[in-house]
């Protein structure tokens, strides 16, 4: 069994979108329904600030466990920590850390600052961000373009 962790600055924006595409929660060929988009917005409100904690998203067809992780600006350091901890504790399952940092953009930073107030303006901003980033996430996922600072795979 393998584990895949999608990480970015926040664990609930592009990283979560990638994870949801991977597990099949989100369709690969079109936008998800609005209810799902609002559900992700709710996730950002509740758990966006909980960087450092893995968020379990689901399993793919190969029973690979998919997680997301918010790392703020310290993705490389956390990747090293997790990979070495995995070796130290002799975790037999492989872990792949995949960066989605380039897919976040700047808007999530503003959204997280505004998210203390859940109102129609933040929802509108979130939807705008989602509509812009979703095609990039779809494209990256479908092409499987992978690069990451530690030689693992991530998205460029």
């Amino acid at each position, binding site marked *: 069994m393998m*584990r895949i*962790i999608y990480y970015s600055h926040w664990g609930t924006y592009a990283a979560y979108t990638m994870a949801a595409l991977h597990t099949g929660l989100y369709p690969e060929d079109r936008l998800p329904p609005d209810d799902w988009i609002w559900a992700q917005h709710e996730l950002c409100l509740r758990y966006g600030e909980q*960087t*450092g*904690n*893995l968020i*379990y998203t689901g399993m793919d067809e190969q029973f690979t*466990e998919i*997680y997301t*992780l918010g*790392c*703020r600006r*310290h993705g*490389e*350091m*956390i*990747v*090293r*920590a*997790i990979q*070495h*901890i*995995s070796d*130290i*504790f002799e*975790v037999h*399952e492989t*872990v792949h850390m995949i960066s989605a940092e380039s897919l976040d953009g700047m808007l999530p930073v503003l959204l997280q600052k505004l998210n203390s107030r859940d109102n129609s303006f933040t929802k509108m901003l979130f939807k705008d961000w989602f509509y812009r980033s979703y095609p990039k996430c779809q494209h990256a996922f479908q092409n499987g373009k992978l690069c990451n600072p530690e030689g693992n795979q991530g998205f460029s």
Partner: protein
Amino acid sequence: MKLFYCCYGGAHTSVTCASIHLGYLPDDRVPSAAEFAGVPFYDKMDNHKLGTPVFMGRDALGWDIYIIGMKNVKTLVIPAMKSYLNACGMDQSDFLLVNALVELHPITSISGVATRKFGLIYPGRPLTIWGIRKTYPKFLALVKDVKENLQVRGNYIRTATDFS
């Protein structure tokens, strides 16, 4: 059983604590500056390797002693490590982390940045040693506390096992 001494850069304070713990540095006096030259990994951690745990040795109680630098985001790195081990179903009762960032002399902090970030080994490294020696009693007290806790822990587990 694994114990991690954590600090900012994984180069000075955590290395000093781990070295005292393992006997590489004395626990009954302040060491000379020359004795730090013999300490493994002192002032050696590169910035681009932060987050990498380094194995320092095994103590008399059987604990594997590591050092790890986490910059100023241990509130991010520690939950990431723990939640990952949790996801893997690993027992974390023998996974301990100790904050080695005791009240540091400002010279240690400034010169630590000078060596690790700006590569100014001289005069940075001698100044870090000077600063560490100034606050050495605090490191001794921290390590003594840690060892006493490990000893009590070991006794408790042995006693609990005897009764089971």
